[in-house]
């Protein structure tokens, strides 16, 4: 767009106003997300061992490689340095079970980028969160490895454990809340430590990359919807605080549901979307066949985003509300 003209001495930029721009760019925002995932990467390594770094490397490598390959086939500019492929790879790796098979990881990563993103035209055009598409594919294809939870470190090698959610669902055993908070429990590698997820999430909200409305409405939603059932029968249904810290809820609320591309545009839309995820999640967790449902809840609400955008326009200044 840079139209220039020659005056005796200088070439001047003649583009129309505004003539200044904020320091933000997509690339910076993406790298900010990568930065915010560092605490979760650390918690994955601390609780489940260095092997998790290998999963991350494979996942990121195949994500970036797939993106570059598809762009090359389509003869489009290679955009891997925008950081979005790296994020998808990282997110996918962090929502896999500990010590997951590397070949399967690679397949998940290829599907996440290929089917989750590039098939729609690349970054900005996809409907579903790519990392969750990859994980949903793995869940359907390899159900057993995807639900084999190696216990956190300091126990004996290769001992499997139940996740707190499945323990509650099938045995009505509620995990200790402090373990849930620290992350010393069974679960997907990046999700177990609530504290690590919260640190990264708060950084993103503080930097303005993530709009607080999505995570806050999800948290409010799960406390209210979970609380209603707990109030009805505390023996049969878990405490809403347990819902909040168990499984992938916080990771989903701060890193998955907040994906710019697949979440609504307007403030009101974001709140409806967040509450919707919380409602679907509570229903899956309490009445579905699976102990956990963050992934499906988010994917389900992703599909409503265009509709939410259409019916939740902001109020035009000076217009009387109907």
């Amino acid at each position, binding site marked *: 767009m840079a139209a220039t003209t020659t005056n005796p001495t200088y070439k001047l930029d*003649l583009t129309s106003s505004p*003539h200044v721009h904020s320091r933000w*760019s997509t690339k910076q*925002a993406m790298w900010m997300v990568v930065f915010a995932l560092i605490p979760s990467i650390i918690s994955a390594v601390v609780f489940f061992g260095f092997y998790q770094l290998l999963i991350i490397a494979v996942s990121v490598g195949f994500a970036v490689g797939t993106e570059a390959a598809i762009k090359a086939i389509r003869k489009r500019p290679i955009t891997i340095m925008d950081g979005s492929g790296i994020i998808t790879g990282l997110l996918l790796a962090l929502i896999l079970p500990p010590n997951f098979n590397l070949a399967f990881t690679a397949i998940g990563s290829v599907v996440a980028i290929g089917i989750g993103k590039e098939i729609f035209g690349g970054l900005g055009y996809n409907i579903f969160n790519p990392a969750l598409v990859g994980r949903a594919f793995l869940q359907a294809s390899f159900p057993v490895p995807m639900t084999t939870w190696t216990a956190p470190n300091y126990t004996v090698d290769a001992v499997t454990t139940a996740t707190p959610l499945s323990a509650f669902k099938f045995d009505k055993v509620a995990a200790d809340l402090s373990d849930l908070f620290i992350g010393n429990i069974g679960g997907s590698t990046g999700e177990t430590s609530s504290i690590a997820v919260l640190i990264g999430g708060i950084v993103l909200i503080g930097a303005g990359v993530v709009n607080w409305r999505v995570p806050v409405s999800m948290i409010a939603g799960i406390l209210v919807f979970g609380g209603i059932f707990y109030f009805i029968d505390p023996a049969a249904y878990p405490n809403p605080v347990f819902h909040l810290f168990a499984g992938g809820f916080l990771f989903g609320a701060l890193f998955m549901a907040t994906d710019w591309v697949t979440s609504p545009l307007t403030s009101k839309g974001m709140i409806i979307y967040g509450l919707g995820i919380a409602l679907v999640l509570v229903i899956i967790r309490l009445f579905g066949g699976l102990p956990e449902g963050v992934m499906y809840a988010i994917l389900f609400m992703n599909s409503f985003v265009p509709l939410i955008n259409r019916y939740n326009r*902001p109020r035009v200044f000076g217009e009387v509300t109907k």
Partner: protein
Amino acid sequence: MNLFQKAKTFRGGIHPGEAKELSENSVFETMPNPAAILIPLQHSAGKAAKPLVKKGDDVKCGQLIAEPDGFISAPIHSPVSGKVTKITPAATVGGFPKDTILITPAETNEYDFMETLNPDKVTPAEIKERVKQAGIVGKGGAAFPTYVKLSPPEDKKIDVIILNGCECEPYLTRDYRFMIERTNEVVSGLQLIMKAIGVDKGSIGIEDNKPGAIAKLKEAVKFIPNITVDVVKTKYPQGAEKMLIKAVTNREVPPGKLPMDVGVVIQNIGTAIAVHDAVVKGEPEITAALTVSGKGINQPKNLIVRVGTPLSDVIEYCGGVNEYVEKVVVGGPMMGVAQFDFSAPIQKATSGLLVLTEDEINAHEETPCLKCGMCVDVCPLGLEPTKLARLSKLDRLEEAEKLDITVCMECGTCTYTCPANIPLVQWIRLGKQRVMTMQRERKSA
């Protein structure tokens, strides 16, 4: 200022780097006469004035040289004594050539001002007539002739005059300097405007990043109970009419309506000064006050220049540009116009001349929209810029019309914010013009 009192404001908006420190402490300097004066016949919204002089005429400083053509049009006076050399189309800061009167200034100025009036005894009709004769135009963006705003239709009940001292555009410090250096004249101008319209409530809206000006104004109105100094939050575009009215009175001007529809007349600080000078000194609008700033100019200044002074003379007077110059803008960095022909003259409503460097512009490459919603979040008018820009780009004008594209005031907040660097307001501006053309055609059909 009470720390616990939240500054009044509006929803949305941004806070770009202010960059006011470059010029905020420079006292106004009056620039000497340039070698040639070029006065376009149009300085305001509405119709161009009709020239009353011809080639070879001698004119005095302050002499009427072009008369208004119709209701929305402003007269023009010669800013210098001298000889009319030509009337010809010439470059303007708006980008299009306009009919222009060229004057070669004489060695000394002979003045031909109007008679002075006593501000305490002047009648409302006299003030309006004086503002009309002095050719005062609004100092906001649209440069509406001021006397039109002083003559609201009978059925519009105005109950407050707001003086806009926000100066929310980065870099600009002209209004700030007026409030600091000519505090009492600002208040006097406001009182004259209030008297002209017959309103007994006045407010000066000012952003909280100007504590020096706030203190001076509060001191000046200490014994004037019907004028308040309303401190509002420092945020762009706080100085947009609708936004300031919302902050000060909590009233919202509906789409397609004017401030007078909610009982408000809003005027700029520079306009108040011009009204004061016209009444008290008999001075027609022959000078413009502007901030010359940016990291590309060697000596940032606040200047009083003769209307009609070419941009090149102003740049030279401020020490010229340095090697990093990337863009030259007349107006503010958010809504100003990029310049390519520096023979174009300063006009009555010119508020700034910015010489910007690459570092200040901070342009990035455009990438696809990620639907992050930041543009929606910051739009002060509650629009959805990403949708409007896309519809404009795809030529889907009817849909853009339904999504209120014509409400956009082109403040540029969306483009400033967009992390994907999409030229949102640029697309919207284009779409808006085309929708408005479509609406006119529909009406005439």
